[in-house]
């Protein structure tokens, strides 16, 4: 009976291992090996050459890492703040207006990234933003904003609006209400939305490729070039570098969220 009960738990654990830990283990193994062909279960040779090679192309990697970080940080900041205000506005709409607004927020999330890229490429190129950091940032913010807006619609669905009324009745202007009450109360979801926006941008390839026109080089693009050149071991090594910032961000977010506690009204 106990064995039957623990089956789903075991299944979930296996899924977790296969979906996340195993690919990561492969990445690590690929990054420190050179000959690993089918049907060998393990690499034939262990080496630090891939890391050496990556270090030697340090300027390119560092530059792309810097661009990726700048894009992701800016996307996180812009999309979390804008998402908060958009979500707040949408949550206060009644009836069909609210439903239409939620559907609009869903659009950039629901449309496949490639289709979205093509649509955005046309408009951003017309605006002269093709191949520019600002253009790529704008493109990254579009899907990120969709996610953060929907996230905040959910947050504001359980938000006690009376707390804002109370502040206004005590003499707070609408700006004071936002700055002194709403934003401080929503510190935790803001941190989470920032992380969400960061992650959406960090892993973005099609939008960066089409809007950046190869002139804005991010780490995922470098990684893609290694993959397309068949340099699997180097790609795995760069992939590990790509993995570190979001993991670090998740740790920082988890710590921040724990420290901030749950102070939603």
């Amino acid at each position, binding site marked *: 009976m106990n064995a039957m009960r623990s089956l789903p738990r075991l299944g979930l654990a296996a899924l977790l291992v296969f979906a996340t830990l195993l690919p990561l283990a492969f990445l690590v193994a690929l990054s420190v090996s050179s000959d690993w062909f089918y049907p060998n279960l393990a690499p034939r040779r262990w080496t630090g050459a891939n890391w050496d090679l990556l270090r030697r192309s340090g300027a390119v990697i560092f530059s792309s890492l810097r661009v990726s970080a700048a894009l992701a940080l800016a996307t996180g900041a812009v999309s979390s703040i804008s998402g908060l205000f958009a979500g707040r506005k949408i949550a206060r709409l009644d009836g069909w207006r609210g439903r239409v607004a939620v559907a609009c927020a869903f659009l950039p999330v629901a449309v496949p990234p490639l289709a979205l890229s093509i649509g955005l490429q046309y408009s951003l190129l017309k605006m002269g933003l093709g191949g520019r950091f600002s253009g790529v940032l704008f493109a990254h913010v579009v899907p990120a904003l969709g996610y953060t807006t929907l996230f905040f619609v959910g947050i504001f669905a359980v938000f*006690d609006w*009376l*707390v804002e*009324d*109370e*502040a*206004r*009745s*005590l*003499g*707070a*202007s*609408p700006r*004071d209400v936002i700055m*002194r*009450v709403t934003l*401080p*109360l929503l*510190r935790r979801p803001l941190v989470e939305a920032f992380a969400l926006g960061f992650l959406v941008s960090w892993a973005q390839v099609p939008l960066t490729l089409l809007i950046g026109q190869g002139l804005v080089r991010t780490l995922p693009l470098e990684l893609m070039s290694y993959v397309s050149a068949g340099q699997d071991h180097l790609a795995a090594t760069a992939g590990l570098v790509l993995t570190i910032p979001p993991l670090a961000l998740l740790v920082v977010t988890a710590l921040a969220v724990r420290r901030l506690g749950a*102070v939603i*009204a």
Partner: protein
Amino acid sequence: MTSPALEMDSVSVRFGAETILQNMTLQVGRGERFVIVGPSGSGKTTLLRVIAGFVTPEGGEIMIAGLSATAVPPEKRDAVYMHQTPILFPHLTVLENVAFPLRVRRLSGGETRERVGAALDAMQMGRFENRMPRTLSGGQKHRVALARAIVARPSLLLLDEPFSALDPALRRDVRLALLAAHSQYEPGVVLVTHDFGDAAGIADRIGVLIEGELTQVASPAELFMRPASLAIARFLNIANEVHGHSDGGGTFCSTLGNFRTRDTIAAGPAIAVFSPAAVTIGLKGRTAARVIEVRTYPEHTTLMLGITGGRLEAACPAGSSFAAGDETTVDLDVDRLAVFPLPAGQRVE
């Protein structure tokens, strides 16, 4: 001459096709405690929210402290609205919560500190100033909310059922805190409650709101002794109703005897309404009665009495020696008797 804390002139509120408040005209003086009672859904909370500026009236004029407030946003009205359950800002300490209204008014640090200290001391919350709201009890939260409401000294305090969620001991505690807050600088108070005891204990005047209309405004004594209509008397839960006839000349005739009434109503079937306190027992009364049931409360005793053709509820001091089955006589204090024509369709019992 000082203008009243609140003046409402023909204020109406509609939600869709439904009329919530109809031609509300009301004046509350500075320092006056005005209590509104009314059944659920009668528009009490809407009335407070329209005064506070959270609901836009369809018509009419609202003046707060002599200034037109009809089109003024809530933060610019000289009034503070306190919700039924105290809403303290959970991310601020007690001190920061109470300082909030002064900080948004950009008062200097010294003055803020001084006024916050005084308000907290008045509410006996000074030693809790560094605590977070989540660590306070329900009564302490109410006290902090009251301190925060009065610290900016608004001309008008709007209190929505401030005692409804409290147990009896806490209710008394918060009621005293409210009176202490009021005595700080005597703002006009409009308080909504379901509880007639709270209303009588706080109010200078009570307004009865039924279906969006103020049907009677009177002092507590006058309201409970002389309700303006049978509907109000029934809403006020005045325990005794005796059917009889009016002779059209100011006399009410019933099984309890004939009584001269203060108001003259047309001849015909009538109902006399009176509270248990209007019934005098055992003083050579006109009507024989038998004690059916004795209910003992901390501050008084209630007797359920059987009389010819009906029952009466009478109040006597705590520790009364009456017991079920005792024979006695009863009479009525005519000053506490309100007589109304029998409503159409109702038969004399």
